[in-house]
């Protein structure tokens, strides 16, 4: 096999994705930018007028900002976790989706912490976290965990990009000058020699194991923010593993949705196949069973032992939040299980539908962890101001939430403009392997 000509072919195949803008892509980007600008306007209003413009008040001091924060950060951790597992255990069909997972990991880890900043009353004093740090505080642990994880994920993502940067550098005759320079810079002299390749694979493998560990630590610390307090509904020993499972649930869900959209939009049916959806669907099934199990044990033990304050919380959940509870913890778990359990339901569309239900259900599950607990404190809320009794997010909070999602998609598109969403180096490795090459770090059975 002539590797160089194959590389050229692949670059030719993928370069429209990198270079060409269609009318629809421009419209989409316009809409997304519009959402981000709307969010920025909301942010300016919040800074000028203070947090009074949000629905948060003295009892519910954490609202959907924190929920989005947990959601995105858990998404990232699960991305790191899944990506690490795919790489570390040399999963057969990983090549087509590994980059999607890696990009989700890094982008959601950039978006997530922005939401916690939105929740902070004095952004101008943010540096106090480093000027006067207190190591006793779980927030300090979380900051350390997130920063470490962010650095680790960036390194990992970059390592997986290097071979593709090198291919793009060597085959970029008809691209703008700045792009070639960028690729040359980012490829840091990678020439795809056997020694270099070997070394890169080794480093990537070590990093993949490390980010699994980092993700577990970071998940745990995030769960501890809640479970180390005394609040009924938060003070739970299973919260750390529960957060890991819940994070994986949303992570696999978002990966399936991203796979579906990318496949459809870029017509990558050849690379992202049904087998990928079925594989991811089966993983989602396993995790939804686990997630349902954790959710059940969490609420069942509270209901069965019915300590006064736990009973008060369940009372809030089953009265004020009845439909949300049904959607988050029944529909959000059972519908994906039913769809994914029966083989004949496993089509690309239905698996994607199950993933959408799972992700929405999980977001709502997070809402039900954060808000009802704060609305049901130990001492009953005795107040006449409705906004102090019941939390409902204002348009400012929703605008910023949607801006976060829009920014997530925008960043995703931006990275897809830099490197192909299907790793070219992975395809080369696979073909080299298929042709009986000497190199055998990755083994592919499918595709």
């Amino acid at each position: 096999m002539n590797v160089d000509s194959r590389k050229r072919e692949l670059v030719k195949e993928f370069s429209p994705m990198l270079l060409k803008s269609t009318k629809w892509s421009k419209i989409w980007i316009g809409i997304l930018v519009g959402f981000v600008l709307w969010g920025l306007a909301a942010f300016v209003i919040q800074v000028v007028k203070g947090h009074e413009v949000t629905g948060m008040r003295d009892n519910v001091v954490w609202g959907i900002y924190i929920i989005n924060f947990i959601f995105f950060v858990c998404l990232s951790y699960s991305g790191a976790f899944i990506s690490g597992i795919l790489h570390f255990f040399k999963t057969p069909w990983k090549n087509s989706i590994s980059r999607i997972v890696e990009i989700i990991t890094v982008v959601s880890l950039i978006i997530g912490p922005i939401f916690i900043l939105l929740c902070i009353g004095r952004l101008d004093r943010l540096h106090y976290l480093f000027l006067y740090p207190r190591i006793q505080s779980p927030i300090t642990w979380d900051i350390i965990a997130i920063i470490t994880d962010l650095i680790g994920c960036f390194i990992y993502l970059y390592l997986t990009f290097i071979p593709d940067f090198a291919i793009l550098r060597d085959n970029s005759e008809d691209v703008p000058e700045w792009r070639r320079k960028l690729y040359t810079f980012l490829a840091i002299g990678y020439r795809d020699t056997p020694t270099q390749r070997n070394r890169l694979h080794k480093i990537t493998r070590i990093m993949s194991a490390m980010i699994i560990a980092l993700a577990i630590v970071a998940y745990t610390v995030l769960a501890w923010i809640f479970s180390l307090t005394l609040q009924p509904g938060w003070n739970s020993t299973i919260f750390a593993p529960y957060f890991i499972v819940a994070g994986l649930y949303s992570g696999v869900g978002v990966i399936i949705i991203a796979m579906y959209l990318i496949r459809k939009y870029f017509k990558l049916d050849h690379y992202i196949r049904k087998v990928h959806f079925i594989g991811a669907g089966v993983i989602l099934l396993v995790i939804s069973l686990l997630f349902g199990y954790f959710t059940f044990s969490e609420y069942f033990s509270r209901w069965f032992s019915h300590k006064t304050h736990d009973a008060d919380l369940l009372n809030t959940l089953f009265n004020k939040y009845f439909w949300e509870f049904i959607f988050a913890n029944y529909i959000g778990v059972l519908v994906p299980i039913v769809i994914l359990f029966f083989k004949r339901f496993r089509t690309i569309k239905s698996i994607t539908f199950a993933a959408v239900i799972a992700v929405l259900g999980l977001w709502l599950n997070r809402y039900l962890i954060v808000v009802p607990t704060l609305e049901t404190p130990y001492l009953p809320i005795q107040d006449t101001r409705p906004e102090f009794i019941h939390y409902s997010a204002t348009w400012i909070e929703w605008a910023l939430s949607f801006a976060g999602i829009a920014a997530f998609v925008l960043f995703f598109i931006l990275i897809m403009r830099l490197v192909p969403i299907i790793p070219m180096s992975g395809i080369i490795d696979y073909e080299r392997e298929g042709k009986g090459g000497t190199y055998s770090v990755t083994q592919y059975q499918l595709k």
Partner: protein
Amino acid sequence: MGLLSGATTVAGATLLANLASEEELQASGEKIRVLTPDGKMVEVDAESINNYPEAHITPAESRKGIPDRKFVMVIDLAKCKNARNCVESCQKAHNLDYNEEFMKVQLIQDHEEAEPYWFPKPCYHCDEPPCVTVCPTGATFKRDDGIVLIDNDRCIGCKFCITSCPYSARQFNWSHKPKFDDTSQPYSPETSIPGTEGTVMKCDFCPDMLRQGKLPYCASSCPMGVIYFGDKNEDMVTNGEETVRFSELINDRGGYRHLEHLGTKPNVYYLPAVNRQFPLERGFDVEEDIIERYKDVPFVQDLKSQGKI
């Protein structure tokens, strides 16, 4: 007059404590004659007397606490009739708005059979304060004298302390208010004035008053003498009218701490609402929207259906 005698008790205690403290070692040699609360004339060293009780305490100084003190509050639930003087005097002293209450009076019903009782609730200044543990910048801190304060110059407004307090003692400044611009007195965590947007505030046990040997505003303003305040080290508490031994009060009258099982070790004790001095209904002699707060308590619903309130 009763108030004054109570105040002098604390003042006298301050003086006596100073006599015993290490400061005595650096005596100036100059003696001053003072009158103790029990009417004796004594000579003390001039250095032992705090000449400027109202001096400004900076945020850094406020972290130390008043030496050799362990402040404690005892609230006698049998005497409370929801007069709300504690709430209002506290609001006035801390420049708080109508709905901002460091001291809240709740209506608590322990179980179906029990009659509800009025429950004044300040910050409990816990010995194991969850709020202090979780603060990432040390903006809220526990002092040697037992008081938990907030330095709103240091607070970043993450609200973790609010979510971790099981007693809902903390409040947030959700927006800027004109009163925050009042710089007529410099900010001190001991007075909690002026407030700052985007930071947390709560009951501070009025350390500025304690330094002057006076009672916190809630204790001194209560017409029923519900709130006793004092020093655990001296085993004395006073409500301004009577001064009693803290240990005797707690042991003889079944003193307890709210939600003891949480292990936060509050420094606010309650005496149960037994042999009440007022019927509960007396507490409904307040504004309509205050009554409205208690509408979820079954007892209040009964009263309403009977047309009594």
